[in-house]
């Protein structure tokens, strides 16, 4: 717990610093940071609908953040979360319409499972290519993203499959019984959010309290040392990428089951890539990722109100996100330099 606080402390400080810088910027343009901030928070929290939208918006960010953070702990960079979640969303939409006659109790897990397995395929391919042929996972996942975009676009349009509902590029509406609602009625807290937090807690425990997590982090920290204590590098690579794919799948499934109620082409505004920023700000700790996901969701959800009430274009929020990422990244680089230097200084001290 102490370590969690220590690891998350720096990103939190930097996020605050970024907010401070943004306030200065606003002052420079003659705007009141207080009013802008108030408008933003009002947009995110004012009504129960606003709150529900904000919290639901955090869910895909938490999942994609985890989908990046877990492989990152193993020393891998999963740029493929975007493709993985799109594939999962498509699989979820199709499964839900094809098996629409099943009872919701059976259909829900089936949808989640199939979406998950399908999303694990490209992640697994990238992991396999890295561990067996040595193709870097960044290259593999980026290219797989393009393959997935095109594949899904094509599958949706193959007439004999009949997946497209009407003229719009989307699947038919999913049965009412499997649409996700609030976990506790009246609070705005969705079932999906509760599930996301649970998954993050499980990830936290697995990473820091179990043997597989120990091996995964060891391979991420020092692959050669991990090898010499018997960690099978190939298994960690494949395993962590598969887990990454599964986590990304939940983001796609949630979008279908909770938000859009069908697979709609282009439903993801780049959640998979924002996940990289979320993982970074969350210090690659699952619980840190939950906080970072919520933070980004508040910014995005409040952006409309900020635009309408305070007259600040909502793109300004994107600016703030970038500012935070730059600060966190530069701190990470500085930190690793410091560590490298401390490492050589420790020679005989």
């Amino acid at each position: 717990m102490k370590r969690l606080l220590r690891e998350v402390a720096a990103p939190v400080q930097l996020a605050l610093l970024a907010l401070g810088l943004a306030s200065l910027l606003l002052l420079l343009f003659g705007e009141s940071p207080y009013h802008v901030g108030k408008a933003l928070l009002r947009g995110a929290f004012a009504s129960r609908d606003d709150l529900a939208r904000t919290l639901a918006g955090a869910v895909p960010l938490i999942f994609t953040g985890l989908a990046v953070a877990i492989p990152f702990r193993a020393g891998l960079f999963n740029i493929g979360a975007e493709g993985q979640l799109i594939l999962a969303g498509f699989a979820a939409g199709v499964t839900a319409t094809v098996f629409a006659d099943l009872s919701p109790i059976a259909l829900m897990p089936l949808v989640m499972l199939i979406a998950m397995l399908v999303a694990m395929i490209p992640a697994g391919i990238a992991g396999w290519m890295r561990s067996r042929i040595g193709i870097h996972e960044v290259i593999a996942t980026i290219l797989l993203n393009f393959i997935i975009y095109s594949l899904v676009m094509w599958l949706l349009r193959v007439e004999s499959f009949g997946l497209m509902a009407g003229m719009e590029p989307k699947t038919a509406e999913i049965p009412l019984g499997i649409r996700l609602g609030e976990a506790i009625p009246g609070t705005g807290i969705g079932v999906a959010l509760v599930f996301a937090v649970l998954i993050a807690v499980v990830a936290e425990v697995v990473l820091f309290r179990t043997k597989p997590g120990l091996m995964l982090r060891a391979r991420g920290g020092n692959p050669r040392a991990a090898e010499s204590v018997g960690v099978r590098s190939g298994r960690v690579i494949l395993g962590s990428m598969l887990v990454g794919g599964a986590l990304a799948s939940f983001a796609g499934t949630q979008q279908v089951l909770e938000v859009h109620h069908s697979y709609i082409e282009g439903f993801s505004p780049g959640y998979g890539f924002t996940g990289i920023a979320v993982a970074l700000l969350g210090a690659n700790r699952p619980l840190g990722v939950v906080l970072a996901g919520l933070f980004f969701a508040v910014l995005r959800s409040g952006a409309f109100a900020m635009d309408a009430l305070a007259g600040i274009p909502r793109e300004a929020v994107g600016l703030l996100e970038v500012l935070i990422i730059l600060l966190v990244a530069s701190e990470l680089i500085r930190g690793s330099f410091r560590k490298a230097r401390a490492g050589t200084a420790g020679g005989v001290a």
Partner: protein
Amino acid sequence: MSGPAIELEGITKRYPGVIANDHVDLAARVGEIHALVGENGAGKTTLMRVLGGLTPPDEGTIRVRGREVSFASAADAAAAGIGMVHQHFTLVPVFTVLENVVLGDEPGFIGGLDGVRDRVVELAGTLGFSIDPDRIVETLTVGERQKVEILRTLLRGARILVLDEPTAVLTPQESRDLFKLLRRLVKEGRTVLFISHRLAEVLAASDRITVMRGGRSVTTIAAAGATEGDLARLMVGREVLLPSAVRGGSEPGEPVLDVSGARALSDRGVPALSGVDLTVRAGEVLGIGGVMGNGQTELMESIAGLRPLTAGAIVLEGADLLGWDAAARIRAGISFVPEDRLDRGLVATMSVEENLALGLMDDERLFRGPFMRMCALRQRADATLKRMDTRPSDPGLLVSTFSGGNQQKVLLGRAFDSGARLILLMEPSRGLDVGAMEIVFEQVRSATARGVGVLLVSSDLTELMSLSDRILVIRRGRIAGEVHPGETTEEELGLMMAGGGA
């Protein structure tokens, strides 16, 4: 002639939670070789970093030839005539000697290189060795690379040369060469300051010795007339058993490890082992002596399951290990202590207890199914750190916050804790002080008393001679001979390693 070249007075450097240097005084005269000795964590490296301008001190003054200076950066120190030669060389392997010498201080024109070339050859000549400025650094021996480092420092005008454990990577012959070179330098009015853990060479090579203990400078004594025992006592603050006095005879039992006809390739794909046969018996320490890079690393890695054999067999207590990976071999009872603790040994970004857990993943007491038993692990880690006398002793700290010597203790503690039947020990006392070496020797002794077989690779001949029951000399991937420590000298062993004698 023998005025003060460099004086440090009341140097104090605090880090959160520790005082690395506590009012340290040190004065080296012009024309002397001055050694700095002390236990791991005594503050030697911090002091050297202060001197080199890498770490600004919190308090204290530095005077170079009587003039007070303050260094904001390494460049300031270099401008004042202080040249650092680090433990890890800073040469670019694929560049030539000449390119490395001018790197970072390039002459303005392409033609300027020829002038530097002449100066390199000339300076090497006056220092009593020759070097081809157009050789690629990769192709040089470790000793030659070190000379290039020294040349570079001198060409930039260094009057005071600071060396951090210069002999740690050298053979005895190379070390002797180095000290000859250093002696010439001081004869010309330069000053040499060096850190070493090898007390015998400190006594032989230096004029005066400053001893540090617990962040303070204890005293400065003349090397002439002092003994290793005196130094060890000053460093530790109590009487210590010197390693050479420790090991008695032991009666080896059944073979634990049998290696026959082992052949393997190096990382670069050239044959590194060309048919090695050896047997380690229970309760025996079998030493492997040799100049670094003669197949020792490849031998140890193939036994540990980290490198495939191209021919031959490795048999552990009757079981052929062909096709067993590292995890299976650990389970079968092999524990591996690699030569470079941060390369193949520890994960610096994880805590000490996590690193211990990594080496003990088959220990039922530390894991319940896949789950770590946090309390049991903490207790185990506390015990290990206490036994190895590490400082600090908190197993929750990251390995990167420990000094090199203390990291080494963690690595060794893990191996001796593992219940292994065979311990592959490489350079166990690299970076360790006498007090810590005492602990390591004690651990080896108690392991062999339990019937554990130890295969030891060390470039420190004193260590090899005092720990081993038998010593095999390895040369170009073959066993070139066997000696018994009681019946040979370091000189003979060194000659065998280099390829002379039988």
